[in-house]
């Protein structure tokens, strides 16, 4: 893993002159976290890291923070993307928020990122971590004291367990070899099937239970690379007033429906909404269900083909089956 970090730094250094900023990851506030890094000076490039802790989808910052659609000079933005992240990038290109030419993309085939909450649940005493690495089917965590091994199934993020796109869809430079996805298209929706086994009233009860925990912190929305409304989000605007600030279940339920419906045919399943949820509500599932419907009905997956138009923003007069 060390060498990939090095390659990453080297690749950016090669082209750094042409870049305005590089988006990557750097070590976070403790040894089990990485954090997004915005590098504007070549000397800082050595801060960059790549390891299974680099969870964040950096595309989230493109529109909301960097306002990447407006470029002053011809300098590009350097960005690191995992497979899932690259789909968000493509989706943003599809929706014309950004243009491909604006970016220097370093793609990293990814075997999964670590859900530290699950890790800590298994091994609450984990500290002084020095190195985290994926070796085959196991996560290797080296601490000052000893080396732990965990089966990947137990410690990866949910999104990674169902990942079909471990390899970046677009990139200018690829670090490492492409990976074979360990899940087929047929298993991609295994997690939502679990809910569909419930009866209709049980499903409602399930969601009532889950969504009632929501504290309306909007972290899910803020972390979503495709939620680009910023201050204009209708969850908070007064005119039109779609939602009140009442903290009751109806409002929470409706808020999550707004988020999901706004992402129908657009969500790239990066799972950030769920990863950042402090209440651990499985909100990605809602979007995945919509994705499944859109795929079956309209044969479309977001963030795959930069030329394609999101299907709910277009139509086909000759369409059969609807």
């Amino acid at each position, binding site marked *: 893993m060390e060498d990939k970090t090095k390659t990453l730094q080297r690749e950016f250094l090669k082209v750094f002159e042409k870049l305005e900023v590089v988006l990557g990851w750097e070590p976070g506030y403790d040894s089990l976290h990485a954090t997004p890094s915005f590098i504007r000076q070549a000397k800082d490039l050595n801060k960059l890291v790549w390891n299974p802790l680099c969870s964040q989808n950096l595309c989230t910052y493109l529109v909301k923070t960097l306002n990447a*659609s*407006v470029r002053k000079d011809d300098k590009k933005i350097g960005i690191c993307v995992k497979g899932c992240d690259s789909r968000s990038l493509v989706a943003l290109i599809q*929706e*014309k*928020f950004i243009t491909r030419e604006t970016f220097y993309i370093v793609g990293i085939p990814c075997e999964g990122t670590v859900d530290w909450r699950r890790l800590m649940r298994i091994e609450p005493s984990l500290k002084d971590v020095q190195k985290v690495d994926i070796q085959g089917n196991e996560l290797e965590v080296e601490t000052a004291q000893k080396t732990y091994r965990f089966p990947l199934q137990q410690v990866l993020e949910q999104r990674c367990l169902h990942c079909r796109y471990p390899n970046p869809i677009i990139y200018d430079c690829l670090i490492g070899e492409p990976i074979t996805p360990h899940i087929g298209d047929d298993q991609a929706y295994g997690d939502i099937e679990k809910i569909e086994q419930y009866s209709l009233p049980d499903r409602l009860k399930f969601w009532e239970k889950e969504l009632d925990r929501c504290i309306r912190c909007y972290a899910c929305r803020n972390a979503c690379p495709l939620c*680009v*409304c*910023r201050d*204009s*989000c*209708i969850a908070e*605007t007064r*005119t*039109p*007033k*779609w939602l009140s600030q009442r903290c009751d279940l109806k409002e929470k339920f409706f808020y999550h429906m707004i988020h999901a419906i*706004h992402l129908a045919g657009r969500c790239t399943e990066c799972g950030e909404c769920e990863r950042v949820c402090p209440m651990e509500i499985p909100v990605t599932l809602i979007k995945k269900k919509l994705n499944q419907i859109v795929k079956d009905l309209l044969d479309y997956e977001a963030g795959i083909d930069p030329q394609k*138009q999101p299907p709910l*923003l*277009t139509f086909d*007069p*000759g369409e059969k089956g609807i």
Partner: protein
Amino acid sequence: MRIGVFICKCGTNIAATVDTEAVARKALEYPDVVYATDYMYTCSEPGQDEIQQAIEEHDLQGVVVAACSPRMHEVTFRRAVEKAGLNRYMFEQANIREHCSWISKDTEANTRKAIDLVRMSVEKLRFNHPLFSSQVPINKRVLVIGGGISGIQAALDCAEGGLDVVMVERESTIGGKMAKLDKTFPTIDCSACILGPKMVDVAQHENIHLYAYSEIESVSGYMGNFKVDIRKKATYVDWDACTGCGLCTEKCPAKKSFDGFNEGLDTTTAINISFPQAIPKRAKIDPKYCWYLTKEKCKICQKICPVDAIRFDMKDETVVEEVGAIIVATGFDLVDHSVYGEYGGGHYPDVITGLQFERLVSASGPYEGHIIRPSDGKEPKNIVFIACVGSRDPSIGRPYCSGICCMYIAKQAILARDHIPDSNCYVFYIDIRAPGKNYEEFVRRAQEDYGVQYIRGRVGKIYPQGEHLIVQGIDTLLGIQVEVEADLVVLATGVAASVGAKELAEKLRISYDEYGFYMESHPKLRPVETNTAGVFLAGVCQGPKDIPASVAQGSAAAAKTQILFSRDTIETDPQIAKVNERMCIGCGKCIDVCPFGSIQWKTLRDGSQKAEVLDTVCQGCGLCNATCPPKAIQLQHCTDDQILAEIEVLCAGERHG
């Protein structure tokens, strides 16, 4: 807001099954409602007076009338409240007749429903704002696209009415398909004799400016104020200088040029004039065949031209015209019959199209009106006409009837029998469609007076045998196969949308059907309008039709234009989309989905991009509103807040029972 509610009894239409008094009583409990009453006929003059009085007496700021469908009387009541000084959009109508009193006899349920409907209207009204229309001046010039009979008629009618007309024709001459016809059904009038004078009128009318050999490049703007880029294709001849003397065409050595006017039956010279009566009568060079333009030698035309009009360095040129309305009359092309392998797929020289037959029989055609076989120049004795080639054929994606073929093959068979009295004419048909004035009689004449053999059935195969073509068909009336040893076969080739029709439609933002014919606004009541305001249709571009219908449509489109131009300004409907710039995130999704191109980008001073609605173009469908993620674009008078208020009041309101 101070709201007044008026419940109409509509005689007994409503009162019989709705307790109107109870509804009015209930309405008084609603927020902002300061006055409520029921009345026998609210739409009557005394009824309207009562509303106006109430507005004055109670200082009302908004009015709800619960009565019939707003599709019936919304306009009436809006006028009534306007007279009393309110803005006409400070009015809502609850439909308690068609949607309530008339569909159930259960008075209690109906009354509950009426109460809900009034409540919803009140809630909606509470979010209403005064709206104002604006006035936009009209540029009273009209563009006619296409110089066939339909376009000519439209242009002449407009010009006669005093309008400035710009006509654009793709070919080097106007006249369209009609100019190629020999005679016309059912009168056997000479086509050139009735069309010619109209073509001359176009050329000579001071109000008409003709761009021949030109195409529409782009169209922007909207009703009243279109801007059109017209590309004048290079003719390599200075038309201001050219007199149409024709010397060049006599001397041009490149004599193998494709002769489009004669449907490829003949060849012409690289520098040519389509036909002697062409308007404008000017020469043009076909660069594909010109020796100088392809091989850089010759220049004979330049040497011989008495007025020095040849310009080998001419390039396409774009001109801009501004108009207030557009009449589209782009006509049609024939279905490509090469898809019919069983009829030779276009390889047999003596299997020709209907239009080729017209050139064959026309006195101005390549054979000076003698009907002869293209292959060997012999006079045909047995001529077969096959109907429905490229029409009524779902297998090639053309299920529609072309409407004119039955008539034109009857005419052509008559002409053939006229020209060659000892010839035999056979018409293979499926059904005969002759629903025009004197049409059926005409088809009967072909059979009764001219002895044309009509055989009910289709032809399965044509193959050459020696000098002849064996036509193998069926007589379905007898159930036996029929073989004709034919000398000439005429396919009644059907009508297809003009080449490039779809591209033009995209530029004009009008819709077209799956075959490329332009969509009228309403198939019965608005046959020459399109859904793009200010764009009208005439002729076959809208669907197959014959000459009289094309001419009628040309006149109708001209009339529609005149009506539009009878006012100096257009009043816009204020029930349209409006952007809240502060909330707009510049995602452009509204621009992508708008069916009318009525939203455009606007760059603010800080460089950010926002959506902006063109008030005169927006039709108020609200698709943008539904699409906009932050709901920054709102359809006035049907805003999210209004719909949400209606939903909320229904759901949250005390449910009965």
